[in-house]
Structures are given as C-alpha cells and as structure tokens.
C-alpha cells in the first residue's frame, strides 16, 4: 500500500490528454486542459467535466463508474489504470497525462481497440469443457465442487477483461502474438477447474511458442490488475500444468461428472433446518 502523504488540497490540475481523430488528424497529439479538482474526483469524472465544458469531442469508453465493467482503462500518468478508480489528487502530480492504453490499436482519442484482447481470450476456449455433453446440455443434477477445489482458481475468476494487464506487459509490446497475461491466466482458470476436461483442446493455442514460455516474468500485469488478480502467477501455474501433462503426470479428471441428482438437492433443501433461535421474543 502506498503510504505517501498526498496533497489533497483542491487546486487547478493540468490534464495532458492525447487526442486523435482518424478522420481529421494525421497523427495523435497532446492537448492541455486546466480543471479545478476537488478531493475525491476521479479521472473519469474529470474527463466528464472536460467534455462538458472544454472538449466536447473528446472520446473515451466507460460504463459502470465503479471498477466493475472494466471499460475505462487508460494510460494515466504512464500507468494503465481504470479512470473510474483513480482519484486525481491521489496521483500526487499537478500535471496528469491521460492517453489510450498502449499495446492496442487506437480507435479515437482515449478509445483503444480491444480486439486483440478478445481474440486471445477466445482462443483459449474460456469455458468449462466437459465430454459429458448430454449432461451439460440437459442437466439432471449438479456438477459438484468442493470449496478447496474452487479455491484452486478462485482469484482468476475475478478478471473483468479490462485489458490493463496486456497494456502493462512488456512482452506484448515487443511480441504482439504473445497470448498475454489475461488469456493465459484464464487458460489456467479453466484448466484448474475440476469440472473441466478441456486441456487437450486448449493445447493448440497455449502449448505454442507464443504461449506461457514467452512470459519474461516482469510481473507488470499483476501490478496493473485493478481486481487484485495475479496473472503472472497464473502463467507459472499454467506452465506447471503443461509440463506435468507433457510427461504424463497431469491431473487425471474423471470424464464422468460427479453429478448430484437434482432430486437430492431438492431433498437437502427441504430437509434443511435453520439453527435454533438465540434470541427469545
């Protein structure tokens, strides 16, 4: 945690915003705006203020305003961050630079083209693959999972696909074909899932030159993640999974799901008795 004391006194902050309109500009350029910033104002709110009063054509992408949707990823003061979660005065500088995420094509102003993120994510088949198709299509029960089995990949389920990790990754910067931390961590998330039997189907994408072995272990992805996910760890765990599988020591998963019949679930709910009251009326 950054314990440095920030100057949160309301004051004028200069915003250096990188502008680019492919219809009218030959190349991106920086434009400066001044704004009086009060404590608590986020970069996203500042952009709304600028758009309302100074830069009506300024474009960016945002939605939820609370760090859930992952739409407002930007390069703020040279770091990939969510604009809605970054308070301007906590940045500690009187000049704040805002640019589109690096390692992505630029659509307009602060809008990155996230297609590389989506394509890489799709390539690793980000869903539970189970050979027991009839059970998947028309379930007769529950696929069981213990809390310990869930814990094995739990943190990786928090990924919101904001793409900050790819923007921070130095390997993606030099090797655009590198699958990147988001997709690789998600490959581990599904491979580690006890309900999933899809490792062999994912090998085409992940057991390749541009897969996990290209990771330079910089750890920038884990620092950038706004949800506290550690994609760098996911990549290392994926390597271990692949190595064990390649020498025949991979985790053996049952092709038959441990299905708890729905009738059992209903019965368990019906038999559920609440704990005795601790307060008498």
């Amino acid at each position, binding site marked *: 945690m950054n314990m440095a004391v920030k100057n949160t006194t309301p004051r004028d902050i200069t915003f250096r915003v990188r502008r680019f309109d492919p219809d009218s500009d030959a190349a991106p350029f920086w434009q400066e705006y001044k704004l009086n910033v009060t404590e608590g104002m986020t970069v996203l709110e500042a952009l709304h203020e600028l758009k309302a009063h100074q830069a009506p054509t300024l474009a960016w992408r945002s939605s939820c305003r609370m760090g859930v949707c992952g739409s407002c990823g930007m390069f703020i003061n040279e770091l990939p961050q969510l604009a809605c979660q970054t308070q301007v005065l906590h940045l500690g500088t009187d000049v704040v630079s805002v640019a589109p995420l690096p390692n992505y094509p630029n659509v307009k102003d602060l809008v990155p083209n996230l297609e590389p993120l989506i394509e890489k994510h799709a390539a690793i088949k980000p869903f539970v693959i189970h050979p027991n198709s009839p059970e998947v299509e028309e379930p007769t029960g529950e696929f069981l999972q213990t809390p310990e089995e869930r814990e094995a990949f739990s943190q990786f389920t928090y990924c919101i696909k904001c793409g900050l990790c790819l923007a921070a990754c130095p390997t993606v910067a030099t*090797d*655009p074909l590198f699958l990147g931390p988001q997709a690789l961590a998600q490959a581990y998330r599904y491979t580690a899932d006890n309900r999933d039997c899809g490792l062999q189907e994912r090998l085409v994408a992940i057991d390749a030159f541009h897969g996990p072995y290209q990771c330079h272990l910089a750890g920038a992805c884990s620092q950038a993640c706004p949800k506290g996910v550690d994609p760098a760890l996911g990549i290392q765990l994926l390597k271990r999974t692949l*190595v064990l599988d390649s020498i025949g020591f991979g985790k053996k998963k049952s092709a038959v799901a441990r299905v708890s019949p729905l009738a059992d679930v209903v019965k368990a709910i019906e038999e559920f008795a609440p704990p005795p009251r601790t307060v008498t009326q």
Partner: protein
Amino acid sequence: MMRETRLWSLHLLAIPLILVLLGMHFALMHYAPVFYGMSVEEARSFEVMIERGRSIAQFVLYILLLAAGLYHGFYGLRGILRELPLTPVLSRVVDVGILVFGLLIFALGTYVTWWTFSYRIGG
C-alpha cells in the same frame, strides 16, 4: 510437431546437465593440478589430451556437453529471434535454420571428438 512444453522443459533440463558436465570438464582441464597432480600446461599438452580423448568416458562426456550446450544456446537464440516481428514464413525459416545450423555444429563437434577418440599416436 513437438509440443513447446517439451522443448522448453529440455531447455531447462539442459542447465543442470551443463553445470555437471562443465564441472567435469573444468576438473579435467583447468584443475588438473588438484585432481590429477599434473600442471595445467601438462594437462593441455597434445599427448595428454589425445591420451585422455581415447577414453570412452571422456568421449561420452564431451558429446553430452556438446548436445546440452548447443540445445540450450540455440533454443535461447530461437526465443530471441522469434520475438522479432516476423512473418509466419520467416518464423519457420528461423526454426528450421536454427535446427539445421545446430545439427551441423553438433556433427562437426562429434567428428572432432570421434577423431580424438580414434586417434592412434604414431599412426
């Protein structure tokens, strides 16, 4: 095509192998006064080298060291080259080129080691 995982695993496995074999090479050549009671100059003399080279153990040691060193080095070089923005065709050229070049050097090294192994002093 071999899985990248196996290629990468071999790259890592080559490290301890190189450390052990290189240690034996150093013991033979550079620390001869300590292990064999002869001076470094004597250990490097033509006659002593040829004599040692006729040992099957040394023949195996150097072939293994050659293979492990070349594999580790060329796999690393491939990694550096393939990170460049290459077209798929150029990537393939790098893969095949490195494989062929590595095999050629291995063949040359094997020939030299075999020549030493089979050399008879005085014809």
